[in-house]
């Protein structure tokens, strides 16, 4: 019953936000062009890095394209769901419209995380998958059902880690009121995820694995895609994702006790 209600509400969210976005045709066209140009630009940048080296951090250009593909999918998901919703949290808290969310008989985290959708991000997701299909061909990967399911598990974990990090930062708005800059910092860290983790120095690798888990977000799914990842890394990724999701959830519920609503 509860699941059915949430599915029904989500279908309404999809319907209303698509209808809102489609009101502005030009904006969607500009977003679509930006997505295509951004992917071309990223591949060009990657090719410059590989111009004088066949391998960077043990990765060949054709293999590094897999990371680029995964990054593009994640960026698409970010632009489709996270960006329109999670940046709104700051606005909700600053302007006090979170009041309406909290007084609805529905989970507030579900409501503020999924209410909006930006359809132009879908193109990036499609482009990312197309790039991955191309990578299967050029890397001659023997793709089977096991790799495919493991790949999807790690990608879903990546999405949850990224979401939790972003949501965690946005939640701090309840105390600090303005945290737009922090989410921008997170986005720039995600850009780093376009490159193989091994291409960074040891200390940076530790930083990107422990503090900002970029390694878990792009590198591990890419290794799984190539059939190179060890099982413990996959388990670790699942564990990290569970930890991030449960912590961000608890943090949100804790933070709501301090919500003072904007003055009228």
């Amino acid at each position, binding site marked *: 019953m509860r699941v059915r209600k949430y599915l029904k509400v989500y279908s*309404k969210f999809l319907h209303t936000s698509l*209808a*809102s976005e489609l009101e502005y045709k030009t904006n969607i066209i500009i977003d679509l062009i930006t997505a295509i140009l951004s992917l071309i630009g990223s591949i060009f940048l990657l090719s410059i890095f590989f111009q004088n080296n066949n391998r960077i951090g043990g990765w060949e250009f054709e293999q590094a394209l897999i990371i680029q593909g995964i990054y593009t999918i994640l960026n698409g998901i970010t632009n489709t769901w996270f960006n329109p919703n999670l940046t709104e949290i700051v606005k909700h808290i600053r302007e006090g419209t979170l009041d309406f969310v909290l007084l*609805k*008989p529905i989970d507030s985290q579900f409501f503020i995380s999924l209410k909006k959708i930006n359809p132009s991000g879908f193109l990036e997701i499609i482009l990312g998958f197309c790039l991955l299909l191309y990578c299967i061909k050029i890397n001659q990967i023997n793709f089977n059902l096991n790799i495919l399911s493991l790949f999807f598990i790690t990608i879903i974990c990546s999405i949850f880690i990224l979401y939790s990090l972003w949501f965690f930062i946005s939640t701090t708005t309840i105390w600090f009121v303005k945290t737009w800059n922090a989410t921008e910092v997170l986005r720039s860290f995600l850009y780093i995820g376009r490159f193989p983790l091994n291409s960074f120095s040891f200390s940076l690798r530790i930083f990107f694995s422990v503090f900002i888990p970029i390694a878990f977000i792009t590198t591990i799914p890419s290794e799984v895609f190539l059939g190179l990842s060890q099982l413990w890394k996959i388990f670790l990724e699942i564990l990290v994702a569970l930890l991030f999701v449960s912590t961000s959830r608890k943090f949100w519920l804790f933070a709501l006790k301090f919500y*003072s609503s904007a003055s009228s």
Partner: protein
Amino acid sequence: MEKNIIYVKNLSKSFDVSSKEPGLKGTIKHFFKRKTTSLKVIKNISFEIKEGEIVGFLGANGAGKTTILKMLCGLIYPTEGSISVSGYLPYRRKENFLKNITLIMGQKQQLLWDLPPIESFYLNASIYDLDKLEAKKRINKLSEMLEIDDDLFKPVRKLSLGQRMKSELLAALIHKPNILFLDEPTLGLDINAQRNLRNFLQKYNKETNATICLTSHYMKDITSLCKRVICVHNGSISYDGKLDLLLKKLSPVKEILIICRSESDAIKLEKSGFMVKNKRKNEITLKVENKSITSSLKAILNNFDIEDLYINEPPIDEIIGKILIKKDCSI
């Protein structure tokens, strides 16, 4: 006899507030080291509200009216004291409690800006577990009561403030709440839109026996909707009781403008012992205590040759203005 639906006992709320000295030096100091003080905005208040009652919360800006409403609907946690609304602790925000209440704020909106209001209504209907048929029935009924049938299909951004507020009301009432919290619902509306909204609320209260807690700076909202008012002054309750009793207490005299047939009658009346406010030719204005108004009128009509007379109530805004600055309005 209606039963109590809202209980508030010894309720207090404190907020941490930071203060900043003026100028660049103050700004830099404020950036590195904030001076915060705990400010008690609601101080030990207690009251009860009956089912079906319409209660107006009166007070100056910053008196604490909205904070009380926000604690009643569960948006903010009280610092001390107990609170029960419809048998629930509001701040726990249980699903059944939330299905029973609604909050409407004149200065904030929940409608989807780029879409017609009807889309927001159906979205809310799905959140409140209403099936499409039931939702349609309720939308039709409420839109008829609010007279907004034609505006349901225009984008919200194209609607006037009055039409938007009516749509906000419909979106907030689609789940048939028993308790309505209204925070300045007529803010910025023109006179006709204000009157329509008040008429709707009266009708809604009569039809559903819903309890309404209302704050407003428009005195007409309070006088035409609320029999009972709670006056809030600096976070404390300065008066809780019937509005007409309060008005009588704060304004114990009425003014009577009397037009005599001749100037000599006016002079005689002036010297007869009544309290005279002013006199001009054959017109004289007297100040008479509320309790002796009937006997005074009888005496005037029997003893003087009167052409016409008018009884003037003092302007309500003036009286309410007195309430806002009074610490204690107890009778």
